Each structure stands twice: as structure tokens, then as C-alpha cells.
């Protein structure tokens, strides 16, 4: 009898040890979760940069992933180049010739370091996973920022309407229409017009 393919694959692929270095705990756990779901069980996360040396000794990673915003990247790169824990010199990214992977990783904001000699096809899915999770996290952050700025806009517009209603003695609907018309005429956002109005009103106050 033949063993199922997946089991075969598992026999041929002993679990890789993966280290994630990210001072953003949420993003780190999103990536960790993704890797575990994909069947990688030896995943370690380091948030505190000063603990990296000890963790590298302990987990002897085959793959190390670092976010590009991390100002300690230069330090880690130098540390890896000296570290005996990684045994062999390490190369960055999947393969020096695989420029599209490198571009995708840099664009997503992640860099990966691998033990030299590790086969490309074994690391590629890990990097792809990290890239997609990094991108998902960025999208999430963007949405959050957008929601936050929409809320801010609404507050500013409400405040500007209040000023107009008081100074011109008009209704809320009229104040709203006036702001909208001015914004359209000047080809600007309503929130920007509202902000200028608030600033101007502040200057004119006795």
C-alpha cells in the first residue's frame, strides 16, 4: 500500500524552525498563527530585540523573518553574520536570483534570512505566507486609519456648522449646504473647508 501523499511529504520535510522578530506584537501573532495553520509548529516570536541572541541559541532557526520598519535590522544582520548558532553563513531572502520574491517581500515590508543551503522550495511558502499576512495587516491598518480620519472629519464639520449657525443665524441644513457648496466651488474636501473656517473663526475671536 502507498502512504497518502501528504504523509510522504511530511516524512521528507522535517519541521523547519522559524523565528519572527517584530516589535509589533499583533502583526507577529498574525504571522505566527498563519504559519501554525499551515502546519509549521516550530515558530518562535521575539518582540524584545535584546532577547534575540538568547532565542537564536535556543531555537536554532532555519528561517528568520524581520519587519523592515525595525530600526534594529542592521544590528541583527551583523549579529547573524557572526552568529555560530546559525552555523553556516546565511543569505537573505529565498534565493539571490529570485528577484520577484525579493521585490514582493520588500514591498510588503518584511525581510527573511535563511540558513544557507536550505532549498528554495522549502522556504518559498513560508515567505509567501509572511508576505500575504504583512499585506493583510497593512490593509487592516489603513482601514483603521481611514475610519479614524472619517470620524475626525465629521467632528470638524459639526463644529464648523455650529460656528456658521451662530454667526449667520441659519439652520443646520443651511450651514451644511453652505459648507458643501463652498467645498465644491473650491474643489476641496468639506472637512478642509470646515477646518479653515474653524481656524479663521479662532483668529477673529476677541
Amino acid at each position: 500500500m502507498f502512504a497518502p501523499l501528504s504523509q510522504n511529504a511530511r516524512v521528507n520535510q522535517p519541521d523547519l524552525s522559524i523565528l519572527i522578530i517584530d516589535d509589533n506584537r499583533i502583526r507577529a501573532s498574525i504571522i505566527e498563527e498563519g504559519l501554525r495553520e499551515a502546519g509549521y509548529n516550530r515558530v518562535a516570536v521575539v518582540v524584545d530585540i535584546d532577547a534575540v541572541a538568547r532565542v537564536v541559541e535556543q531555537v536554532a532557526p532555519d528561517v528568520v523573518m524581520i519587519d523592515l520598519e525595525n530600526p534594529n535590522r542592521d544590528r541583527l544582520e551583523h549579529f547573524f553574520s557572526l552568529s555560530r548558532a546559525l552555523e553556516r553563513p546565511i543569505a537573505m531572502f529565498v534565493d539571490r536570483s529570485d528577484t520577484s520574491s525579493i521585490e514582493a517581500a520588500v514591498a510588503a515590508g518584511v525581510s527573511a534570512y535563511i540558513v544557507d543551503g536550505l532549498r528554495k522550495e522549502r522556504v518559498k511558502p513560508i515567505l509567501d505566507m509572511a508576505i500575504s499576512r504583512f499585506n493583510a495587516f497593512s490593509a487592516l491598518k489603513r482601514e483603521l486609519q481611514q475610519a479614524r480620519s472619517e470620524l475626525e472629519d465629521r467632528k470638524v464639520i459639526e463644529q464648523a456648522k455650529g460656528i456658521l449657525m451662530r454667526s449667520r443665524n441659519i439652520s443646520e441644513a443651511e450651514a451644511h449646504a453652505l459648507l458643501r457648496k463652498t467645498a465644491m466651488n473650491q474643489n476641496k474636501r468639506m472637512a478642509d473647508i470646515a477646518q479653515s473656517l474653524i481656524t479663521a473663526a479662532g483668529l477673529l475671536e476677541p
Partner: protein
Amino acid sequence: MSQTIIAAGFMPLTDSMLLVVAEQQGFAAAEGLSLRLVRETSWANIRDRVGVGHFDVAHMLAPMPIAANLGLSPLPVPFIAAMALGHGGNAVTVSLDLWAQMIAHGATDDLDPATTGLALAAAVHASPRRLRFGVVHQDSSHNHELRYWLAASGVVPDRDVEIVVLPPPLLPDALASGAIDGYCVGEPWGGVAVRAGHGRIVTTKSRIWRSSPDKVLGMRAAWADANPDTLAALIRALHNAALWCSAPANLPEAARIMAQPQFLDQPADLVGGALTGHLAIGAGATRQVERFYVPYAGAANFPWKSHAVWFYAQMVRWGQVQASPQNLALAAASFRPDLYRAALAPLGVPMPPDDYKIDGLITKPLELATPAGPLLQFPDGFFDGTRFDWSAPL
């Protein structure tokens, strides 16, 4: 007229000034360029983002294009340096504890690398533990100059002291917390530790290796090949920015620009001191350091091939790369004075007659006659009196 947009990465250091000033004072616009300046958090990001094309050019460590071409970088992409972004600009700062030990071993506060180096060596050898020094990247002039100074003073790097890498803005905190005992970095990051009361400046790059480059305008060789006119325009814009920065009357405005949050995010007087060479070195003492940072004069933008060879020789010395005629040729080819000369030819700028020079021959400022007029040259070479002859680099 539509403007060509150039994406340029930089690290928050005073010598990113030429790029910043070129954009802010209109020198880029005058050449039909618009610089999109992006502040980065690590030199590795600068290198990788130039490598994959996020940045067209960058404020780059001088040895970085050489290291990339010698295969020491992760990306298999040829890099070049088209000009140097000035001479000098960095200093060696030590903790107050180490300074106290250095004084006990005869250190003086004149920033002389010969005497402070000997005092440091004595302190290193008397220390019960191995001292640790920070530099900003393995492939940085800081690393190579610190090692040169230590070795010439009787300290064997990696054996007697440990050298670690930290990004510039994190070095003052690392010194304050005792994680490192000293560091070599571009300003304002030595001054930041002095001002916070944690550090003492003991010597400067301008005295360890006189008239030497620290950062270059780095880019992919392929980008330079594909955009010759844009590159020439950029070199002219940076040349005019360097001239503007050379006028003492403009330095207060330059300091104000660089101090802003999107650039250095540090007090303008601290930045101004780094630009004029008026350095607070610790305990209330200040020193006027001659030619601490030189944006233009003395051919400070000329990318000497002999300087590229010096960096290569240091990489060989510290075991980063094998010595070979091929590697020597790759290193020399990383610096491109031909591009710099060609871009500035229409402006009639005095140029050195050769792309190579022996460092250490010039002992006092002199004017060299060139077809385009006199070219000022400042003393060069090393504090220990050694000459560097590029034709016999090892």
C-alpha cells in the same frame, strides 16, 4: 515644464543635507527635478530598497556599493557611487566611565586621535571585561575608521574589543544604558549623547583620516545607465546644493532645515554645531574642529577611485573579502568619477587631473592649477602618518 521625479532614500544624519537642500532650496527644481525624499530606519533598508528599485538613488554609506559589488550583500545587483556627499562628519564618543579611565591613562581633551587612542588602548588592556563599541553598519566608513584607529593605537578589534552594529539614532541610548562603551557615528548622534550628559567626544573622523568620504550618492548601475541625463541633472543639483552649504552665511538656515521633524528631528543649535564644527564634547567643554564636515571644498564631492580601493583594502584586512585582482577592479569600478566629471563639465568646475591619488602627500592646504581654474586641496592621509598608496593597497 514637467519635472522628473527621483525617489531618494536617506538616513537622519547631517550629511543627508545635500539631498535635502537640493530639494528645499530649489536646486533640484532648477534642473527640472523633484526629489521625493524618504527617511529610512536602517542602512540595510536603504541598500535593499535601492536594490529592488523603490529608490532611484540614496544617501548611502561609502563602502556599501563596493560591498554589494563584491558579493557581500544579499542582492545580486551592481551598485555605483556617482559622487561623494562631503568629507568628514562623524566622531567617536565614549561613556563617561570609559572617559574617566582614559584620563587616568593620560588622555587629553584636544581630540587628538594619537593621544586619545593610546589612552583608550591602555584602558582597554586594563579593563576586566572586553569593552564593546558600536558602529552603524559593517559596510560603513565608521566601522573601518574605528578599526583603523584602534589597530594603530594597539588594540586588536574583535579580540581586544567587541564591535557591534546599531542604527545611528539608537546609539546614544545604548551608551546611556551601558550596552556599549563607545561608538563612532555621524552627527548629530555623538552630540546627542554629550548633550544628554552620557557621553564624551574623544576624536573625530576628520582627524583619523583627513579629507575622507563618509556617504555617497549610491544607486543601481542599471539606473545610472538608463537615466544618464537625469543623473547628470541630479549631480548638478547636488553640486549647487553643496556650494550653497559651503557659504557660512547659509549654515543657520541649513541647520534650521535639517533640524525639522521630517529630517533630523533634533535641536537646530545642535545641528548647527555639527555643520560648523563647533562641537560640545562633554562636561561643558566645546572645541572648534577644523574641517569637521566639509560639504564641498577640497574636492569633497569627487568620488576618488583610490578611496574605493582603501575601503576594499580594509575589507580584506578584516577578513570580509578575499584579496584578488578581480575584487580590486570591482571595488575601483564602484566609484564613478567619470559620471561626476561629465555632469559638471558644462559648469566649468575645477576637477582633479586624475581619478586616483596617494593619501597622505598633502600636509597643508594648497591650490592645484587646473584648466577650469584653481582647485583647493586640503591635507589628507592618516593620523598615524601612514600613506595609502592605491597601487599597493595591501
